[in-house]
């Protein structure tokens, strides 16, 4: 029986990967707005954007932006790295699969 559940678990993992790549996981409208802002900013600057720019351009509160960045980062959609100009600021980078 243990083996049966392990096999089902493997099948669910496979579907999880598909779900991830199809991007059908749930995002709220605010999260989507932040996400689209990151894409637009990345396109404009051709490099990562900092959090202050995302807050200003998305019109969302800093806390919403932070929460969304955390979620996008855990979903492996973006990655955060320290900014060269200001070590206290994080640079948001879109991962290559997007």
């Amino acid at each position: 029986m243990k083996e049966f559940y392990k096999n089902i678990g493997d099948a669910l993992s496979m579907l999880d990967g598909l779900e991830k790549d199809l991007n059908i996981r749930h995002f709220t409208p605010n999260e989507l707005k932040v996400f689209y802002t990151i894409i637009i900013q990345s396109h404009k600057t051709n490099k990562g954007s900092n959090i202050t720019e995302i807050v200003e351009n998305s019109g969302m509160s800093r806390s919403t932006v932070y929460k969304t960045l955390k979620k996008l980062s855990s979903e492996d959609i973006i990655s955060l790295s320290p900014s060269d100009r200001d070590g206290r600021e994080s640079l948001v980078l879109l991962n290559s699969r997007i």
Partner: protein
Amino acid sequence: MKNFLTLSVTTYLFGITLWVLWYFVDQNVPFLMGEGSWYYLPHAARVLCVVYFGYKAIPALYLAELSGPYLLVPGLYPFSSYLPSFISVISVPLAIQVLRLLSFPLGDTASSPLNKRNYKHIYLITFISAGFNAILVNLYLSRNELNFPGLITNIEQLSRFFVGDIIGTVLVFVSLSYILKPIIAQSRN
């Protein structure tokens, strides 16, 4: 033994459910009526069950393949489908074996050349098995001068089988990832 029974029942129910669903769509849904071989959903059961349950799933899959045309809709095909159904079921283990011979054995870790947790690898098995199924079943039909009602066994039918198995499997996988979203989220945590 208990594991074999559980996986056999699961495989049979999954296979027959997909067959019934496919037959219903093929018979009743406008625009898709009579075009069932372009989206053959039951191929997904062959792929999923053989990949995740192994060769032990073959008897139940074969029974599910035969139940459609023999129990649910008797006389659906004007020829005996015992051998074509068997070829269809065997196409997936054949694809896995061919990949294994080419040094791509199927495993369940990230270091395995083919990982059963990676859907792209499962699509590769789907693609190859659809090819084997299309070629071998149509070869059998053509050699024995057998045809589906109103159709001719030719290269067009072979292409339809190939594309249909792939489209059907992709449709089932995508639908399952939507339907099982809550369970997948739970298993992730």
